[in-house]
């Protein structure tokens, strides 16, 4: 079993009554609600958390791309991955991912991912989402009717750019390039593992099965509701005669661990509420542009992740409901172990994308949860899939061959041999955004 510690990097200070005062956390959220001085602290807190996850032994560090919103502040996850590439050592950099249809030309993504892979010594997981409708259609103006076709073309171009040994010409419908010649090329050959995050579009199952990519189902309805999608995916895999290897499925799950079940509720409930009522408060008209989902997905009855129907489902749910219905896995380490094991087994899932910082959670609570999980849950679940080989994790350079970033003392500024003290350690400690 593998664990990717995922961060959404939310804005923690959306005002009380946000849901009633504003129509959407995404697309047209008022700009004056963002304070860049708070943002400065938040980014640095969040990177601290991801770096800690590396030291605690999590297998992957997850970041993703979203635009114009207070739910997740990473328009460019590659910038976060670049920061982590130098200050982490072991964990995979799971960039889940770049919305490849948005980039012109898409070889830009092939280049940046190659850079990340080379800098990190081959630790990159390359994620290619279509992107949410809010992101790609409403914020970035892509025509809903053609976004998927453009996505598939970008995917083919990026893969060829990584794989072909020689310069080639690419005459696509959306991208035309006379010379494609990737410098640098990725360290992992022929390319980093590819994970396809999806929100439940059924076409994605075939796409993953046909290309051998890992399918990561990202949902906030939790593992019980997620079973319908996981089963759909496994059915397609079985029909195509593919190995039903748990590592070819990733699943995102909110996890709230504390010393006791009761303590978990006390500590986490307000932040869950913040997450579900503010971070996921998306205006219905932005949830699903016409043409973004295909008729077959709509007919399959898969509810969009956000919007009116999704909100209605969550309306009035209590902490107990959220726990009982599997939206979140919460409680003592023992409870979390049991529920999570049950969840992973029922989904046949080998890659957990775990969310331990969501909504308004402050750094000290996040740290407590991470340490508890790493110490008292993770080791017990490692051996869940003894008969399967994980073919979707990076294959980095052996440690002795890896470059070591020069150590720095962040408190000193060096100018022509004269050393000036920039900040005291005490001041540094108190500088989080709590």
């Amino acid at each position, binding site marked *: 079993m593998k664990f990717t510690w995922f961060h959404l990097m939310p804005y923690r200070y959306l005002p009380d009554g946000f849901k009633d005062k504003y129509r959407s956390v995404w697309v047209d959220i008022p700009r004056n609600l963002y304070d860049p001085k708070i943002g400065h602290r938040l980014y640095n807190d969040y990177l601290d958390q991801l770096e800690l996850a590396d030291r605690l032994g999590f297998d992957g560090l997850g970041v993703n791309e979203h635009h114009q919103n207070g739910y997740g502040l990473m328009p460019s996850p590659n910038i976060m991955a670049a920061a982590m590439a130098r200050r982490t050592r072991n964990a995979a950099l799971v960039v889940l991912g770049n919305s490849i249809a948005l980039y012109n030309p898409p070889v830009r993504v092939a280049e940046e991912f190659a850079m990340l892979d080379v800098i990190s010594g081959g630790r990159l997981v390359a994620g290619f989402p279509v992107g949410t409708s809010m992101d790609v259609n409403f914020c970035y103006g892509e025509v809903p009717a053609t976004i998927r076709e453009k996505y598939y073309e970008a995917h083919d171009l990026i893969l060829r750019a990584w794989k072909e040994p020689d310069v080639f010409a690419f005459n696509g419908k959306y991208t035309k390039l006379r010379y494609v010649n990737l410098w640098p090329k990725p360290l992992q050959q022929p390319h980093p593992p590819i994970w396809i995050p999806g929100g439940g579009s059924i076409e994605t199952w075939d796409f993953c099965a046909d290309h051998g990519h890992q399918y990561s189902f990202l949902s906030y309805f939790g593992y019980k509701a997620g079973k319908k999608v996981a089963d759909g995916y496994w059915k397609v895999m079985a029909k195509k005669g593919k190995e039903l290897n748990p590592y070819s499925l990733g699943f995102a799950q909110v996890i709230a661990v504390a010393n006791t079940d009761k303590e978990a509720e006390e500590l986490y409930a307000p932040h869950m509420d913040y997450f579900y009522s503010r971070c996921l408060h998306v205006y*219905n008209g932005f949830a699903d*542009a016409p043409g973004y989902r295909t008729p077959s997905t709509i007919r399959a009855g898969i509810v969009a992740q956000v919007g009116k129907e999704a909100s209605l489902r969550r309306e009035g749910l209590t902490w107990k409901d959220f726990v009982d219905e599997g939206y979140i896995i919460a409680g003592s380490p023992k409870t979390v172990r049991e529920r999570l094991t049950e969840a992973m087994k029922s989904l046949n899932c080998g890659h957990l994308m775990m969310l331990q910082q969501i909504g308004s959670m402050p750094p000290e609570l996040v740290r407590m949860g991470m340490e508890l999980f790493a110490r008292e849950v993770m080791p017990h679940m490692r051996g869940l899939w003894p008969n399967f080989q994980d073919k979707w994790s990076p294959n980095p350079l052996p440690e002795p061959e890896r470059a070591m970033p020069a150590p720095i003392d962040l408190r000193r500024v060096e100018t022509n041999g004269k050393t000036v003290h920039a900040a005291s350690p005490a001041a540094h400690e108190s500088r989080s955004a709590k």
Partner: protein
Amino acid sequence: MKTTHKIRDGKFSVETWEFGSGEPLLYIHGAGGLTGFDPFLEELGKDFRVIAPHLPGFGESTGGELVEDVVDAALFYHQLMDELGIPSAHIVGHSMGGMLASETAALDVHRAKKLVLVGSAGFWLDEHPIPDFFALDLSELGSYLFHDPKSPIAQLFLAIPDDQEQLVEMYVERTKRLAMASKFLWPIPDRGLKKRAHRIAAPTLLLWGESDRLIPPVYAGEFAKRIKNTKTETLKAAGHLPMYEQPEAFIKAVRGFLKS
């Protein structure tokens, strides 16, 4: 009555509503498509040979994947006219259909005898941004489309079926139509008509509902500025769908202009 025309070696199967005889009149519908119950077409059939095709991707018409932009759409209408043996016709276009009618007339100046543009899309004015039609909830749509969203005809348009299966089918159909429309209108309904509108040679009626809150009447002025020979008429107590909300006044204006 409804017929089907196969054109371009069957690549397009075109659901067409046809009424009456006389001078041909091509009606190009908006993003909502034809409803299958469009009495104004039948009424115009008393004076004209009305031909109202569903654009590929709408209704039962197939081949939507071959129509990707306004040029494809205009060429589709040219070809349909040729196959129906009407090299030129009066062309009436509504909303998105007004944009496509303008392109059809501008790309081949011999196609339109006279042109009627009703609440037409095609331009964008920063001072008068068109509401984001695609993001509007059904509950909000009424006030943009109708002068009186409470009127029986408006209620008929905005009705939501109780039956879950019907609801899903309605949603799928709406998604299909709007996905096609997004090729011309997303995210800003401007595909360069301003470079071509000057070519339109046909006398043109700009017909607007005075309460059109989707594409407000100020846009009629933009068409008047860019097309050589225009006349503007505003219909009282009508919104973006005057042919349904004020059918008599609508027909009188269209007939009057085409007969003059």
